[in-house]
């Protein structure tokens, strides 16, 4: 009999797989599209293949505690290899399949892998290139035989099928060997290495224990229940924690069947065919789907566009209620039912979201407009927050309590606190055992079971967590209030009219900003309004443009706590440019440089004046320099706050 709920945490992942294979042998564990057909894999077959692979590993002399790396796209063999490795007490290591050879060399030598499963010739070629740098690797196993004939004579390389054959022979001789090893497994054993993204320094391997993955799966399903007959499409890299927690943690703790697309390019059309019940993707996927819809709507007939617009405005109004979990007024409810029937249902069907109960986004910030759009069309999109070190999801929105400016509340069994420094600390059974061979980083990051996330944030009165920025990037006002310029800049830049923003306030009494209006959208807006302008300088200083941007700033201010609100701002007379060293080549603002260069304007922002006279130089592409003298208006963000005590600046 299959245990349920938190009892699952007493078992290792291979033990759970074995139980599933015994209690529901014919249930569908995975599907893979091959040659245009979805082929089902039952739990019995899943377990049989993982067992064969495990036996094969024993035949190859693989010892408990050794590491096996997998660098492959999303294919069932990934899971056979992972569970097979864990069955014999080994540790699987995910390597991004897009990694370049030097990165692969680093990961393999750092984790000291003994065996590597490489999907195809492309991956094997990378390994051959770095063969001398990875002396610990004894065997390379490839899955796709295409183009591999030339490597036949090399004893270093063998096929996945050969390993399964070796395993079958070993199993006949030692029928109980792997079973015994599975029995010996404990939930606290380290079973998988997931590489942290490594924006600072080289990636570190987080050591995942069985109980981490199982806890995460069980806890999330306590609030967002799933059924074993549900479907999930696995198309993001398995080396990423998100895919591990879904396809391993969630799936084995009772979740769903894992479906594998035919190839990386077909993921979106395969999504449509599968119609998953749950989706987890980073923001770029959500943004991509939305812009795809926009493009297709903008290409259709005027009548269709009109229907789309009309229905969407109903959807947006309904979204307000749905996100807060409040019942809609009768009229809106009826209107939304109608809109759903004639537009949103067919639209969701086109996207493969018709059966979708919940969708998650995480990894980076998603614009509030995108968020609202999905709720308008009936997709229950929720923000999650968490690191590799806490199995991806530590915070999530509850159904009916979705806010586009928070990342939700801790999942069951999780605790949160904010340190003195403003750093977010989290604790739960999902916190991993530490970093592989990085004792100092482990001591810094894991203190008394609390994970130091390195992110700064605060809790709202309702217990929702708001993430501001990396702790190292936050600043303090002269009154000691912590803020993240980037956090506010990003919120400003979500406006289509704002191209670039630079927020000031370090050791200052309040926050101010430089704003670059977007010449395209604001230019178009001005044309539509019949506002004549000559150059960007002229456009940026128009009073109507100032009002337009003031409304956008007001909207951003409304979503911020009192001390983070922008008091004054200027519309800069030129676009910040990498050629003038104001931006890095990757488009990030060089804050210090900008502050120095425009010092008079910054002083103006804090000096109470309403105009600043500036002399500036323009560098042209041919190297010539032109001197320009102009006046910049310093704008109050909330002028009515001064005029009326209620601060009721009416937008729109």
């Amino acid at each position, binding site marked *: 009999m299959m245990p349920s709920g938190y009892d699952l945490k007493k078992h290792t992942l291979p033990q759970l797989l074995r139980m599933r294979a015994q209690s529901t042998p014919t249930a569908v564990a995975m599907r893979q599209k*091959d*040659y*245009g*057909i979805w082929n089902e894999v039952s739990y019995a077959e899943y377990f049989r293949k993982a067992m064969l692979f495990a036996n094969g590993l024993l035949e190859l002399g693989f010892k408990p505690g050794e590491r096996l790396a997998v660098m492959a796209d999303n294919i069932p063999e990934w899971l056979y290899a992972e569970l097979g490795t864990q069955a014999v007490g080994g540790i699987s290591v995910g390597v991004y399949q897009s990694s370049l050879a030097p990165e692969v060399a680093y990961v393999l030598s750092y984790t000291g892998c003994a065996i590597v499963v490489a999907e195809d010739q492309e991956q094997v070629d990378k390994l051959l290139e770095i063969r001398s740098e990875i002396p610990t690797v004894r065997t390379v196993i490839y899955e796709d035989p*295409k*183009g591999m*004939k*030339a490597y036949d004579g090399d004893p270093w390389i063998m096929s996945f099928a050969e390993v399964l054959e070796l395993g079958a022979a070993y199993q006949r001789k030692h029928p109980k060997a792997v079973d015994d090893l599975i029995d010996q497994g404990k939930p606290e054993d380290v079973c998988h290495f997931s590489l942290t993204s490594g924006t600072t320094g080289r990636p570190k391997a987080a050591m995942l224990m069985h109980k981490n993955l199982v806890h995460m799966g069980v806890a999330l399903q306590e609030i967002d229940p799933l059924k074993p007959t549900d479907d999930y499409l696995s198309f993001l890299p398995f080396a990423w924690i998100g895919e591990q927690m879904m396809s391993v943690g969630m799936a084995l703790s009772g979740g769903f069947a894992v479906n594998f697309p*035919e*190839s990386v*390019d*077909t993921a979106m*059309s395969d999504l449509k065919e599968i119609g998953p019940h749950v989706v987890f993707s980073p923001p770029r996927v959500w943004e991509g789907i939305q812009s795809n819809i926009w493009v297709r709507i903008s290409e259709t007939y005027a009548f269709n566009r009109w229907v789309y617009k009309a229905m969407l405005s109903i959807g947006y109004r309904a979204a307000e209620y749905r996100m807060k979990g409040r019942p809609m007024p009768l009229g809106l409810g009826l209107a939304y039912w109608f809109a759903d029937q004639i537009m949103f249902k067919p639209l969701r069907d086109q996207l493969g979201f018709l059966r979708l109960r919940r969708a998650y986004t995480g990894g980076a910030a998603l614009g509030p407009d995108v968020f609202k759009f999905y709720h308008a069309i009936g997709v229950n999109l929720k923000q999650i927050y968490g690191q590799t070190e806490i199995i991806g999801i530590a915070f999530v929105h509850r159904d009916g309590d979705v806010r586009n400016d928070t990342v939700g509340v801790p999942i069951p069994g999780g605790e949160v606190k904010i340190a003195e420094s403003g750093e977010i600390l989290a604790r739960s059974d999902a916190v991993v055992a530490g970093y592989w061979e990085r004792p100092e980083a482990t001591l810094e990051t894991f203190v008394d079971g609390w994970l130091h996330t390195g992110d700064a944030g605060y809790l709202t009165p309702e217990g929702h967590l708001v993430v501001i920025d990396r702790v190292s990037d936050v600043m303090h006002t002269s009154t000691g209030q912590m803020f993240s310029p980037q956090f506010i800049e990003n919120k400003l830049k979500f406006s289509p009219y704002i191209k670039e923003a630079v927020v000031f306030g370090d050791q200052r009494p309040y926050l101010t900003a430089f704003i670059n209006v977007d010449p395209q959208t604001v230019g178009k807006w001005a044309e539509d309004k019949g506002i004549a302008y000559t150059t960007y300088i002229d456009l940026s200083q128009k009073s109507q443009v100032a009002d337009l941007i003031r409304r956008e700033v007001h909207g951003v201010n409304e979503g911020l706590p009192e001390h983070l609100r922008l008091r004054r701002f200027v519309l800069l007379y030129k676009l910040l440019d990498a050629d003038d060293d104001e931006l890095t080549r990757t488009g990030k603002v060089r804050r210090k440089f900008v502050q120095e260069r425009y010092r008079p304007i910054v002083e103006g922002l804090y000096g109470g004046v309403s105009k600043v006279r500036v002399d500036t130089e323009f560098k042209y592409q041919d190297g010539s320099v032109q001197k320009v003298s102009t006046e910049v208006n310093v704008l109050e963000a909330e002028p009515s706050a001064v005029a009326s005590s209620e601060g009721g600046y009416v937008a729109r």
Partner: protein
Amino acid sequence: MQLEVKNVSLRFGGVNALTDVSLDVKQGELVSVIGPNGAGKTSLLNCISGFYHPSAGRITFEGHDLTHASPHQVTKYGIARAFQNIELFSGLTVLENLLLARHTFYKYNFLEAVWVYGKAMREGVANRRIVEEVIDFMELEGVRKALVGNLPYGVRKRVEVARALSLSPKLLLLDEPMAGMTLEEKEDMVRFILDIHERGTTIILIEHDLGVVMDISQRVNVLDFGQLIASGLPEEVSANPRVQEAYVGVDHAA
């Protein structure tokens, strides 16, 4: 010898497109034919694939005489060709194009086709399987149901090769499969050609990119003004003074 071309000449009125050309191709070889524009490379392929019949000489493939064979007979003997100017139905999907390529192998009758039973069902499944294997091999899964006319040029070239492969050929004739491609597309195509070759298919390749030709061919044949002026290993051919002359011209000042 799998393919033997013996003393083949091809004349159009007073023009000699091919003059006394002889070459042999062994089973499983990857052979290239190069030469300046108008040298007769495509004419030679046309003779092999039955579009032209040689004015003199003889062509045999695995004991079958191809000298006067029609294109569909040549196909049945196991020779397929990918054309230089993509010969696909742009209004059909990739899948339909590939299935259509196999129509010479269909054996069922009209009634079976209408009700899709018996042979029509069995053959339909078998043909689809072969075509799906080609789609998998040429990595066309993402465009299986896309109309060929909507695809970018580089992908259409790949579909053209896939169409030829759908015939499960023993000998594959590739007429400039890399013409007009970007460097990345070329690299992909070279990989596909090597993979096809690795599966045991004999390949005759016409290509202008000499770098590619010299890298991947086992033997190179050079045509100039309809005559075979050199034949041998890539390094031998590139060192041959007559070949250099044909490509860079003669220095008359010397």
